[in-house]
């Protein structure tokens, strides 16, 4: 099981700025190990975010996103106390969802 994401959601005016730090290897499938064998690709493909259970963002990522990916976005119409949930799914079918409260 992958490590939890670190999510911080802070109000800025009428929007909530959400910063997410995911924990993932993000292997491109192009690198080789010491023995010259290709390390298989392993990366996050789908990312989505929900505000109080309502989808607000979907994204698709390629293998060129950095290891332990960072993502920042702003949610309109959020208020303090709202729940922001972020999920990802990788190319091996593994997934993770974490939640944070807007402050």
């Amino acid at each position: 099981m992958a490590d939890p994401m670190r999510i911080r959601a802070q109000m800025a005016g009428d929007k909530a700025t959400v910063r997410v730090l995911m924990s993932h290897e993000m292997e491109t499938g192009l690198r080789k190990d010491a023995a010259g064998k290709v390390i298989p690709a392993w990366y996050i493909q789908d990312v989505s975010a929900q505000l109080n259970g309502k989808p607000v963002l979907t994204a698709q990522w390629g293998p060129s996103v950095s290891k332990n990916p960072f993502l920042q976005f702003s949610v309109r119409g959020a208020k303090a106390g709202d729940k922001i949930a972020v999920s990802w799914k990788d190319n091996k079918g593994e997934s993770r969802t974490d939640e944070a409260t807007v402050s």
Partner: protein
Amino acid sequence: MLNRRALLTHSAKLAALLAGAGLLPQAGHAAYNAAAFEVKTMADLVKLLGGSTPTESKDVTITGPDIAENGAVVQLGVATTQPGAKRLLLLVEKNPSVLSAMFDISDAVDASFVTRVKMGQSSNVYAVAMLGDGKVLFAQKEVKVTLGGCGG
């Protein structure tokens, strides 16, 4: 005959690979567009996604460092002020496949995202906004990389 057999095995493998890569629709997610992440140039990418010829525009912005010391972690921001934008793409021209990330914009989020990408070498990076009416706008910036992020 051997050739034909080899070909058949190969296509079966390919089909399995496509299915495994998430091309089959799944509830709650749009199907992962694996083909878009294989494309080598911006023109081909936009064509694949059904947009018209990209034009440079001031309504799209890309932010990032002029010089990135470590190509493994380059923080880039994409944003647009165009009200009709449906999708924002982040592209790195000289990476093995040009598309890094694709964000679908809803009414509930600002058309502005920041993320970090790997860059193999110094290259132009693009922010591409696809509008609802099929128009495609882009902005570009050059990022110099002193240490590549795709080595190994």
